[in-house]
């Protein structure tokens, strides 16, 4: 599909979405006085060929806003947090990832309600080793310089004007060659967290690829999953990821006897089973 037709498709999607009061309508027309509110779709991009794709950025605020689009590095810690990594601290894989992603534009000024596509593609070098390479694309509003009015300046005393520069990052993943991963679920248990019981387990991972999917805890005789966690990622920099899920008292009460924990790919990606374990947790 060409960029142009994809752009038309996504624009149409956004138009449909904006017209739908039930679904995205509520999301787009949420009260937003702030300048710089934003919508980004998709929330994750995988590039495994030479052709590019697009990410849609939409100004859902009530004023014109300028956004900066950049590439940043994040690493996942064992506890699942994504922490920023300075470019000067990049390892060879992260440097390669930064070097191969092409994207445009890098700065967009949008009136309220207006979407625009950011085109991106990977240009991996011919001698790039097989593997998974990743950067995080950031979308951030640039605040307009604010006019200080007389009423803002107190005759006496100190006041503070602290403006958040806020934005989102989404992963851009490049898969070079054939990459695989295997994951196992280990040692599920109930532990006491700061604010009550938590389900704790670890995901151990081997291979060159990340995994991404849905984690479901089910029990025979209980219709709905006891725990449902979507969009759970384990990135290649991790051999093992710890997961803690806070439980409501109702959820915790169901943790007796045999339960089944399944980690599956997202339904959109086929829903294939990545890992499962049957365990007694109590």
């Amino acid at each position, binding site marked *: 599909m060409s960029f142009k037709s*994809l752009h038309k498709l996504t624009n149409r999607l956004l138009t449909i979405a904006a017209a739908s009061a039930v679904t995205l309508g509520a999301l787009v027309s949420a009260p937003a006085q702030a300048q710089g509110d934003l919508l980004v779709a998709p929330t994750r991009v995988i590039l495994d060929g030479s052709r590019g794709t697009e990410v849609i950025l939409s100004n859902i605020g009530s004023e014109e806003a300028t956004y900066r689009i950049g590439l940043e590095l994040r690493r996942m810690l064992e506890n699942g947090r994504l922490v920023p990594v300075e470019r000067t601290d990049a390892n060879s894989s992260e440097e390669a990832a930064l070097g191969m992603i092409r994207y445009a534009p890098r700065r967009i000024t949008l009136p309220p309600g207006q979407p625009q596509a950011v085109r991106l593609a990977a240009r991996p070098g011919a001698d790039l080793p097989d593997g998974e390479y990743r950067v995080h694309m950031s979308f951030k509003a640039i605040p307009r310089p*604010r006019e200080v009015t007389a009423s803002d300046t107190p005759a006496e*005393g100190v006041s503070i004007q602290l403006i958040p520069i*806020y934005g989102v990052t989404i992963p851009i993943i490049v898969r070079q060659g054939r990459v695989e991963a295997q994951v196992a679920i280990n040692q599920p248990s109930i532990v006491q967290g700061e604010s009550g019981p938590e389900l704790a387990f670890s995901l151990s991972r081997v291979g060159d690829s990340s*995994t991404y999917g849905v984690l479901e805890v089910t029990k025979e005789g209980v219709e709905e999953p006891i725990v449902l966690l979507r969009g759970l990622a384990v990135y290649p920099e991790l051999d093992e990821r710890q997961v803690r899920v806070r439980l409501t008292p109702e959820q915790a009460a169901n943790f007796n006897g045999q339960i089944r924990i399944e980690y599956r790919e997202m339904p959109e990606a086929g829903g294939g089973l990545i890992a499962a374990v049957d365990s007694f947790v109590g």
Partner: protein
Amino acid sequence: MNKTIRFGAAGVAMFAALGMSSVAHADTATADATAEILDALVLNNDGGSLDFGTMVVSGGGVVTLAADGTLTCADPDIVCSGTTGVAGFSVEGTANKAVTINLPTGSVELRHPSYTPATAAQHAIELDTFTSSENGGSGPEVTLDAAGDATFDVGGTITLDGSEEAGTFDGTFDVSVEYS
């Protein structure tokens, strides 16, 4: 290429299946660019800026505005007045997903309009210890609910040395919602 448009069961998100990609097997020879998971991710700053109100400063001390909105202004040389407010954000995205929030880990400098490097003592205020109302086991993190919604508030602590000149001190701080 097969194009489908459908809405998520929770009504949160827009999906456009532009192609499927297997996590386990991705082969350069056969696959093209695929965009997976076209949920939308939305970030709104619906709670405005971080506002410590007005402080009359006659000596050093700290003022803390907790993420739940509680103001701690206990030093006798600082008198706090006026309306205070935390910076509030709302996130909309994938239902039941835990999302990292990154706040500044160092300090942020706020400057008086008359700031020059030589007058930094009376024209600069340090703000640090940013805190979030939503936290995971090891830092700011928010879990989107079954409808894909979440909110979080950000507070902070300012340190005054007592020599600050009256006026409005300006500054910015970064708030980043990190999707995995």
